[in-house]
């Protein structure tokens, strides 16, 4: 079976998402250090801006892809029996997708 995210592509996805996440984290740390929102409403209106939303959603897509490649790597190494894999892989994939959906319904409607 050849999945879409295999070989070189999986490897590249992991590097590229790592770079995005690094920039993302640095940006948010800087934002909180230098332009720290004073209260919840400022924070909320900041987060509801279109480009910030996009940044965060892309950040979560990157995080989930990164986590998937990494966790799958660990499972391919350590979870040997096919039956255990058949349970573990969909379980992890399902959990990641659930997190993604939860993020989407939380962030997208912000205004």
């Amino acid at each position, binding site marked *: 079976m050849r999945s879409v995210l*295999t070989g*070189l*592509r999986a490897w*590249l996805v992991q590097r590229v998402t790592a770079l995005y996440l690094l920039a993302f984290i640095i940006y948010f740390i800087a934002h909180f250090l230098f332009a720290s929102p004073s209260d919840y409403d400022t924070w909320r209106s900041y987060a509801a801006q279109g480009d910030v939303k996009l940044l965060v959603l892309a950040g979560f897509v990157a995080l989930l892809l990164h986590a998937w490649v990494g966790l799958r790597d660990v499972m391919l*190494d350590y979870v040997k029996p096919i039956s255990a894999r058949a349970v573990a892989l969909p379980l992890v994939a399902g959990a990641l997708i659930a997190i993604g959906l939860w993020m989407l319904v939380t962030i997208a409607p912000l205004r």
Partner: protein
Amino acid sequence: MKISIFRYDPERDSEGRMQDYEIEPEPHEAMLLDLILRLKGEDDTLTLRRSCREGVCGSDAININGRNGLACITPIRALGERAVLRPLPGFPVIRDLVVDMTQFFKQYVSIKPYVVDPGPMPDKERRQSPQARERLDGLYECILCACCTSMCPSYWWNPDKFVGPAGLLQAYRFLADSRDRDTKARLDDLDDVYRLFRCRTIMNCTEVCPKALAPSRAIERIRLMLAERAL
């Protein structure tokens, strides 16, 4: 000095044990292999592989104080007062220090370790410029001792699916060969989750190679070739 050696005789032992030997190096003995061979002279049940005794055949790779190396080029002086010798980790033990290398060579064969060129045979030889030949330096010197592959955690977990550093160094040796015409098929073969990409750049392989080669760099080059082809 004291030498502990892993002993296992499949006909007598249910599991391996360590046996201690007391031995003083004599002036003419410089390398660890000299000591092991003297011990074997006294106790001929002690079993190991060796041939060239000068680091070119690759047959006497063992684990020396936790690190893989060739007994024949490991100076006794470097060992201190105690040496613990075990068979190569991650390989099935046949007897004492002798391991089964079948899987290792299967992986080696799987990368097609020969020049592939479907074109007509040249009259005399396949020619190569000195510059193109230079690109094989640091690759062709591998003696297939398996020191690297046997120290690679990724190979321990998936010896049947991950080619391992020695095999991948050879894969690159043929990818880098100007006379080879099989680049596409070679790259296709390595571009899945297991064969190349189980490597996590742990770098044990390069750290341990007794010929000072760098399998991890070769692996990096193959990744680059794959990336260049994809982008």
